[in-house]
């Protein structure tokens, strides 16, 4: 006697009763494996019954032993049962659902099944059916657990691939603050970003998004990144790079998948950012008047071969930034189902003040919009290119810094200007604004004059009016003093700005040049003046104590 249960598809494998030989086998197995016994799976011929077979409806509504030979029902299932030698079928029904059939061949005594036999079998079926149902449920649950485990494993693999191919560290370019933020959704999407070092100090910047999720998306992302890196080195022009990447991706792209991607080349010295776009979000660029999106059109990668891509370019100004990002930002939903939207992105980027990092304000604004219960729908990727134009790199920081100490305290301003006459005015105003909360009234006016003079010296003497050299400005407040540091490239053994004590009477008599007031003014405008010179740099630090800063 054997039992079977319908699978989801309602195809019913039919088992038959064990014969003597099989029962002997069972006893032998039990003897041999006295402690751990499993019933040997001995199956008879399989009989499949199609889900729409009328026999199934019949069995479900007649849950009692049925003589197959005398059953008058036009059913391929019944015919198949007869051919398999089944004489008696006992439907297993529990809670009104047919979950299996108990199929019996002819009695070994070659007699017909008696009324007692039938009664016994009916009782057996009544108890077996719920037990079998429980077993089925356990099996389904186990399958579900395994399915979940596989899914979790796949998620881990996808995350591993993705994280492995994201940059391990951010590039370090003098005068630039390059930042990235990547937060995968639970079901990892296909976002990626990358920085590629190019010849002549240029920097390739990539942000992309593979449609689809999980391992397939992660693999496409990895290959896109590799192809793009290789093409970027050879071709430079962003439009040509995307053309090449598209043509290489098309043949191997899995069906219904494609990649949106923005690729640009940054010239750190000039702030010029040339980019091409394959169906991705446009960059968001800060200007004095707010933010805008320079346009460039192009089809996503991997769809159609032979595509060409538009190029566009912007110049990122000192203290300003451009942000590249993926869909998840504008498409994030608020509690009422509305989307964050591109206007909000532009508004936040445009409203962030010069010299401030963009990522925190963007995320703050996003979280205010979505509320605390938000479940992130897709990967979020942000890449910001901010031109701080401060070039205080290693040679400067190695210098032992004077009274203000090595710890820069709270930085109030950090930027640089090209060495062009007249730029000292802009520096003066900018530093003036930055320190205005700490240095007040006439002392602020004096500090501004000192800053302008120190910057002018740096432009004219230190950097000799070479516009390609930058004068770096850093202002900070620390321990009761505001310090403004002005650094130029006029280092070396000789002090470039030799101090000179001006004598007005000698000047009026024509015995001394009327000029030479710069350093004198600086000294008299601030509380302390520190001058530091190394092989490369000349640094002037202006110190104003804030305790005395309450106007004068």
């Amino acid at each position, binding site marked *: 006697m054997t039992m079977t249960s319908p699978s989801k598809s309602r195809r019913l494998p039919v088992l038959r009763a064990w014969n003597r030989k099989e029962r002997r086998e069972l006893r032998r197995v039990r003897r041999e494996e006295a402690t751990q016994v499993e019933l040997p799976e001995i199956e008879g011929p399989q009989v499949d019954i199609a889900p729409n077979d009328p026999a199934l409806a019949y069995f479900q509504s007649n849950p009692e032993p049925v003589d197959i030979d005398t059953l008058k029902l036009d059913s391929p299932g019944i015919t198949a049962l007869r051919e398999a030698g089944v004489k008696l079928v006992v439907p297993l029904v529990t809670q009104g659902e047919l979950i299996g059939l108990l199929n019996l061949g002819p009695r070994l005594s070659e007699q017909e099944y008696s009324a007692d036999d039938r009664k016994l079998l009916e009782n057996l079926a009544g108890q077996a059916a719920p037990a079998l149902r429980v077993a089925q449920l356990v099996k389904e649950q186990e399958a579900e657990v395994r399915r979940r485990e596989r899914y979790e494993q796949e998620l881990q693999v996808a995350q591993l691939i993705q994280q492995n191919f994201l940059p391990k560290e951010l590039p370090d370019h003098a005068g630039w603050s390059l930042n990235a933020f990547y937060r995968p959704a639970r079901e990892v999407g296909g976002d990626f970003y990358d920085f590629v070092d190019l010849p002549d100090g240029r920097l390739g910047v990539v942000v992309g998004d593979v449609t689809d999720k999980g391992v397939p998306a992660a693999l496409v992302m990895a290959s896109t990144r590799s192809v793009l890196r290789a093409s970027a080195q050879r071709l430079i022009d962003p439009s040509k790079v995307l053309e090449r990447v598209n043509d290489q991706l098309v043949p191997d792209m899995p069906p219904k998948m494609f990649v949106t991607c923005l690729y640009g080349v940054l010239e750190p010295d000039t702030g010029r950012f040339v980019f091409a776009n394959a169906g991705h979000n446009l960059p968001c660029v800060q200007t004095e008047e707010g933010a805008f999106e320079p346009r460039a059109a192009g089809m996503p990668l991997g769809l159609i071969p032979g595509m060409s891509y538009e190029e566009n370019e912007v110049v990122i100004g000192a203290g300003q930034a451009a942000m590249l990002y993926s869909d998840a930002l504008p498409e994030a939903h608020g509690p009422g189902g509305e989307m964050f939207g591109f206007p909000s992105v532009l508004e936040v980027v445009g409203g962030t003040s010069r010299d401030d990092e963009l990522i925190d304000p963007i995320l703050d604004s996003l979280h205010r919009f979505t509320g605390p219960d938000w479940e992130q729908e897709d990967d979020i990727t942000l890449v910001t290119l901010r031109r701080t134009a401060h070039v205080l790199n290693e040679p400067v920081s190695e210098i032992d810094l004077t009274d203000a100490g090595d710890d820069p305290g709270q930085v109030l301003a950090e930027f640089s200007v090209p060495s062009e*006459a*007249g730029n*000292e*005015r802009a520096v003066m105003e900018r530093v003036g604004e930055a320190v205005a909360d700490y240095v007040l009234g*006439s002392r602020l*006016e*004096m500090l501004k*004059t000192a800053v*302008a*003079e120190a910057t*002018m010296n740096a432009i004219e003497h230190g950097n000799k009016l070479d516009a390609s050299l930058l004068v770096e400005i850093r202002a900070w407040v620390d321990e009761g003093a505001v310090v403004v540091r002005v650094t130029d490239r006029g280092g070396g053994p000789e002090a470039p700005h030799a101090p000179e004590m*001006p004598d*007005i009477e000698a*000047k*009026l*008599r*024509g015995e001394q*040049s*009327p*000029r*030479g*007031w*710069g350093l*004198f*003014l600086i000294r*008299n405008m601030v509380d302390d003046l520190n001058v530091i010179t190394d092989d490369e740099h000349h640094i002037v630090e202006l110190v104003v104590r804030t305790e005395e800063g309450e106007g004068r």
Partner: protein
Amino acid sequence: MSPFEANVRIRGGVAIVDLRGQLDGKADDALDGAYEAAIKGDPAAVLLNFEEVTYINSTGIALIVGVLARARKHELAMLVCGLSDHYQHIFEITRLADFMQFFPDEEAAVVGATPVV
């Protein structure tokens, strides 16, 4: 284009040089020309009116020293009005103030103009 202008007018025997904008290295020619124009009418004094001056740097100070030196050669009194407190302070610490007479405004300067000692 220079962001600095210097225009001369005569009032009560005083040559008034109205300065406007940023007094820095680029102001050289304009200031020079204005001084030349100012002394042509043989004035009793030259009044530098700083009312509209937004910025003076060390080069601007040097230009004033130059003009002052020439005025002293011509034995012309050099008067100053309209300086902000901040720049007046700078004129003091550079001792320019020792060689020029300060007035709060043009009115007071014209009335108070006296020959150089």
